[in-house]
């Protein structure tokens, strides 16, 4: 099985420097594209690969790029942004790629920028990733020195500037349009869509925002072809995927596996199953903003379309595991407090509804719950769901809540009947 994204990552060692990256075949895809491919051919190859956005939403990457106006009538500057604001609780896959092979993402960014003919590229990095910041600063510097960035890249007509932007916190910065506001030096509140960033993004100009893992795949697609990439997957969604697991499993970590690997394989073979003496109760398949899945779903394939059948989402593909000695109500309370805190306050349902939800959960967890609170929580999960709020933060926030009410109902009821947390 091929692992294009992680084959050159040496755990516990510094990442490949420019020379080593070149020796491993790095920047060959960029040479190939600049010398032999039109921008539209790069986009076509990515479309063929069926690469879908790895930030969580799963939008087809090539299709996203194809919305950017091209040709002589297109207005410049255009922008490409790498979303390296990994802040979804339970997610640590982009850190692996940023610290493990920064040139891979930078090459992917240059190729993607070439495909849309962007003039300027930004890496929007979260503050906490100190090691990634210093590695990226060095890698950008070295890429400029080698002629992979700047004017007339590899003596072609194409030029690109690249800058690192290190943020100062807040989950909202990971939301595509919140990120754009943050880059402009504003509060990271979301923007109305349409217009979409592809035609009205940074400073009103055509802009593409792609996730770190998405971009890191692009050099391999250009080197080996879209069909090769598509065939890496067990399902229709192309490529390999970096899956991860945290919680009380024997071997928490991250692994690059074919897209569509089953939850059971990830949990039992790679994460090593539950720790001694603990039983599996459920999991969030792709970060805090995805619906719980339980035992009966373990044979589900981890890809974008398969998990939808079970009422959940692939999200970031990094699993958070709930064991039988951890309180499910406490777990949901922790996540709703996070979402309430991180609501940007822009729209009323999210600003008011999420703290209210967290307060109700706290009352139940602390032994002051009433049975009618469960109905109140259910109503909140609907009223904060899709279509009621300005952006996807609140709908994401209610995913673990609504599914916990479904799968762990008895545990909620026990808290209320016994007026205490049975786990404390």
């Amino acid at each position, binding site marked *: 099985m091929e692992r294009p994204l992680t084959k050159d990552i040496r755990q516990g060692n510094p990442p490949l420097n420019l020379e080593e990256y070149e020796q491993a075949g790095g920047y060959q895809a960029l040479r190939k594209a600049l010398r032999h491919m039109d921008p539209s051919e790069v986009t076509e190859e990515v479309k063929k690969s069926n690469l879908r956005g790895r930030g969580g939403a799963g939008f087809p990457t090539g299709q996203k790029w194809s919305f950017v106006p091209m040709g002589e009538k297109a207005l410049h500057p255009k922008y490409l942004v790498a979303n390296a604001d990994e802040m979804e609780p*339970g997610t*640590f896959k982009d850190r692996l790629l940023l610290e493990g092979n920064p040139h891979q993402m930078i090459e992917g960014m240059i190729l993607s920028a070439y495909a849309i003919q962007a003039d300027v590229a930004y890496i929007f990095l979260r503050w906490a990733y100190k090691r990634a910041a210093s590695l990226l600063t060095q890698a950008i510097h070295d890429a400029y020195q080698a002629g992979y960035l700047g004017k007339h890249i590899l003596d072609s007509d194409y030029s690109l500037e690249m800058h690192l932007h290190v*943020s100062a916190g807040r989950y909202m910065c990971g939301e595509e349009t919140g990120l754009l506001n943050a880059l402009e030096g504003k509060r990271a509140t979301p923007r109305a869509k349409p217009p979409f960033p592809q035609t009205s993004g940074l400073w009103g100009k055509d802009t593409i925002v792609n996730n770190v893992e998405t971009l890191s795949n692009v050099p391999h697609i250009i080197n080996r072809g879209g069909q090769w990439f598509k065939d890496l997957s067990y399902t229709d969604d192309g490529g390999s995927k970096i899956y991860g697991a945290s919680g009380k499993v024997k071997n928490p970590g991250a692994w690059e596996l074919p897209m569509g690997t089953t939850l059971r394989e990830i949990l039992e073979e790679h994460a090593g199953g539950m720790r001694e003496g603990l039983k599996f109760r459920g999991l969030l398949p792709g970060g805090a903003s995805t619906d719980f899945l339980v035992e009966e779903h373990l044979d589900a394939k981890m890809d974008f379309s398969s998990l939808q059948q079970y009422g959940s989402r692939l999200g970031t593909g990094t699993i958070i595991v709930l064991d039988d000695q951890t309180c499910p109500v406490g777990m949901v309370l922790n996540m709703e407090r996070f979402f309430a805190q991180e609501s940007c306050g822009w729209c009323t349902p999210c600003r008011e509804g999420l703290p209210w939800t967290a307060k109700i959960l706290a009352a139940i967890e602390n032994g002051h719950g009433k049975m009618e609170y469960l109905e109140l929580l259910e109503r909140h999960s609907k009223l904060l769901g899709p279509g009621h709020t300005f952006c996807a933060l609140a709908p994401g926030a209610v995913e673990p809540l609504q599914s916990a009410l479904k799968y762990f109902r008895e545990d909620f009821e026990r808290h209320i009947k016994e007026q205490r947390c049975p786990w404390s």
Partner: protein
Amino acid sequence: MLSEEEIREIEAEFPHYPTREAVSVEAMKIVQRHRGWVSDESIHELAEFLEMTPEELDSVATFYNLIYRKPVGRHVILVCDSISCWIMGYESMRARLTERLGIEMGQTSDDNRFTLLPIPCLGTCDHAPAMMVDEDLYRDLKPDDLEEILAGYE
């Protein structure tokens, strides 16, 4: 007054963006790096320098949790309180820290040595629980590890 060094560092960012306003977060981080926090006076001076109103800049400052609008201690401890760390026992870590330092989350110790703050997911969930002290990341923590870690920050 903004120091010459601060001005030089902020000006070095201008060529990366088409507007001065876009540098606002970075500029506040620069001031914070030199002074520990961002005072009302700094907000006024920076706003003028960035061609923004002080209110506009303060609205940005108060949005981002890692821009400190109050003084902090010599070292800032950021304890991850998100879900994976919660499952793996962050609460016992927090209890040990507040007990050892004699302060609650959000407070600064009397000797001004440490400020204790919660932080959302640090992205190292396979090594939970985790925390950062200043720029240093600590992972796979146990309450008994804390004494030795804190000793490294005077």
